């Protein structure tokens, strides 16, 4: 997973690129691959929840998200966690620049 967080005039812009093939039911049949997609994503700055998403398999492969918040400043730590349909979790962190 890749995270980029930048603060400009009190607004933090967070971009993330997650790792998942995002294969839904129909795609798993045509591509002969297992169903695997991220179901939930949370983003926290200094432990405080700033964004979250419940997701389905129709996001692009290796999903991309961008969101903005006023709840952070330069040097704060941002942690992003994902959960997939099998319950596997993944997380990564970065410092806001």
């Amino acid at each position, binding site marked *: 997973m890749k995270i980029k967080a930048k603060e400009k005039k009190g607004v933090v812009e967070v971009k993330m690129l997650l790792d998942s093939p995002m294969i839904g039911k129909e795609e798993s049949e045509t591509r002969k691959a297992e169903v695997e997609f991220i179901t939930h994503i949370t983003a926290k700055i200094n432990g405080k929840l700033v964004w979250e998403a419940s997701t389905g398999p129709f996001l692009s*492969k290796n999903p991309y998200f961008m969101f903005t918040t006023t709840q952070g400043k330069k040097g704060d730590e941002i942690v992003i966690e994902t959960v997939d349909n099998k319950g596997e979790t993944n997380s990564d962190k970065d410092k806001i620049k």
Partner: protein
Amino acid sequence: MQRRKFLSLSAAAAAVASVLPASLSATDFRATAPKAWEAPTSQEAIEALFGSAETIDGQIEIKAPKLAENGGAVPIGIKSKVDLATVALFQDANPRSAVVVMELPEGSVVDLMTKIKMRKTANVTVVAKGRDGKLYSAVQKVEVSIGGCGG
């Protein structure tokens, strides 16, 4: 016997709780509104998720290409000046309509972007619930020249 049973039950419950990731403390719309994720059309999914399809137009801006060359990753931007709490994205190009439901705590700026898969030309619908309790929506048609759903 009763007590022993109770103790083993609570021990099992504690074990389950410790396994669950911390992120589940937040709202998981897949758990709270499972019907919305199975609905084939945007209309049905919106009703299942928000309980109503009566929305206010013109407050949300969708930034999407009119013609998407690659249906595997169609960028969808969502902007609004309204203080939104829940933003949901739907499309009619795939077997099921719901794509993502985002939750924005207080202090968020409604300037979002994601990429979705579309296997054919269809409407993309954004429905959002403001912190004022009202529902807002926007629709944009996206033409897809090459489908991107494994097809």
